[in-house]
């Protein structure tokens, strides 16, 4: 069964991701998928920058990509990103969820459906409730849930909403998250 780390964030997410993604080592053994709310704008320059400061390869996901360790896949603007049963990426142009497309809930739920307990879900800083339901689904399927401490997050709404809906495994400061993920991934 495949494994993955899925990350959801909105406002403040650029900075948060700049802390976490470059802290992951070259041999990090599970693929990483990210939904960052960014409106209709494209992510290209951020993705390129993040790629240049990271040991993992950071790219915009492409339809039917098989998810692989060593890569960080960003959902493209204006499409939901889903993980299919064969651990490949699907897109959908379905209506927005929590005013968002891509939506964190859509990624997290499909990740749990397809990869069951092989998922680590991470909610970072953000300004709406997207992701709370998805994180709960990850927990229900036996996965691991991590939330950034809302007290110190740039925007507390998203982590707070996640904590209100789910009994999570870890509430951590931004700079503690990378080490915890690496530790957890070693169990896989």
């Amino acid at each position, binding site marked *: 069964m495949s494994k993955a780390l899925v990350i959801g964030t909105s406002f403040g997410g650029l900075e948060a991701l700049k802390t976490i993604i470059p802290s992951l080592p070259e041999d990090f053994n599970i693929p990483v998928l990210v939904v960052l709310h960014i409106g209709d704008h494209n992510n290209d320059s951020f993705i390129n920058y993040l790629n240049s400061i990271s040991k993992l390869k950071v790219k915009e996901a*492409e*339809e*039917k990509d098989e998810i692989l360790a060593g890569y960080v896949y960003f959902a*493209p603007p204006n*499409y939901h990103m*889903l*993980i*299919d*049963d064969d651990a490949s990426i*699907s*897109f*959908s*142009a*379905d*209506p927005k969820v929590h005013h968002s497309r891509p939506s964190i809930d*859509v990624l997290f*739920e*499909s990740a749990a*459906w*397809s990869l*069951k*307990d092989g998922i680590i879900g991470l909610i970072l800083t953000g300004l709406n409730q997207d992701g709370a339901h998805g994180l709960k689904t990850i927990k*229900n*399927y*036996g996965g691991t849930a991590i939330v950034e401490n809302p007290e110190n997050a740039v925007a507390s709404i998203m982590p707070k909403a996640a904590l209100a809906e789910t009994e999570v495994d870890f509430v951590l400061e931004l700079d503690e998250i990378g080490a915890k993920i690496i530790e957890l991934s070693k169990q896989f």
Partner: protein
Amino acid sequence: MEQNKSSNIDNIDIEIPLFLEAVYQKYSYDFRDYSKAHVKRRLMHRMSVGHFSSVSQMQEKVLRDKDFFIDLLEDLSINVTEMFRDPDFYKSFRENVVPTLKTYPFIKIWHAGCSTGEEVYSLAILLQEEGLLDRCQVYATDFNRKVLEIAKHGIYQTQELEKFQRNYTKSGGKGQLSDYYTLKYGSIKFDQSLSKRVVFADHNLVTDHVFAEVNLILCRNVLIYFNRELQNKVINLFHESLVHSGHLCLGSKESLRFTQHEHSFSDIDAKQKIFKKRIG
């Protein structure tokens, strides 16, 4: 097998293929090769709206209740669209495809998966502005008859009108979008002259065959919902339907990768997903 919640989870993965098989055998609509994650999302939504406890329970209903099937068809069809969606695509189309179209005495166009028709009217406006519409025959198809009715009437709500106007301008539109519609009772109705060269018809990409030889095919944001096998099958259908050097336009995140026709087309605009069928 452990008796825990995971045995329950496995059930739905057994039930969904059976459900899709039942729908296919009973109603001849084939969703068996749609992306599984997508289908699961839509069916879970219907389950929760309809208060079903399982997909099996829903299967019992769909086999015996045609109206329920019609609702389900709505859930499984793809009906998100807008006027001049992805304006950069239309801009590139004007620059890179229109000059070729102008060399044809008569142009046959297939707009596959046209949904409620906003993108068909967008295309008709563009062709009109380029002086081509009178030389065109457009086949706009979808498997969902309900959306085809909406498309035929060309009447739309005004709530997204500002966005449509913005898209139109960004796409290289030569006038105002309001040149092409009348505003009445809070709705807009597109000028009938735009659809006089359009035939709206029921066609299912999954189960139906080639119906015409065409110069241009547009099929945007439909293939993303299909698995690789079905994508391949539909691209074959398009390849067979196109004349030599005919154009194929896909959605901005779609590609020919993983299909047997990956090398049968050349890129006209790789970013906007405009391709041209190679000769031979």
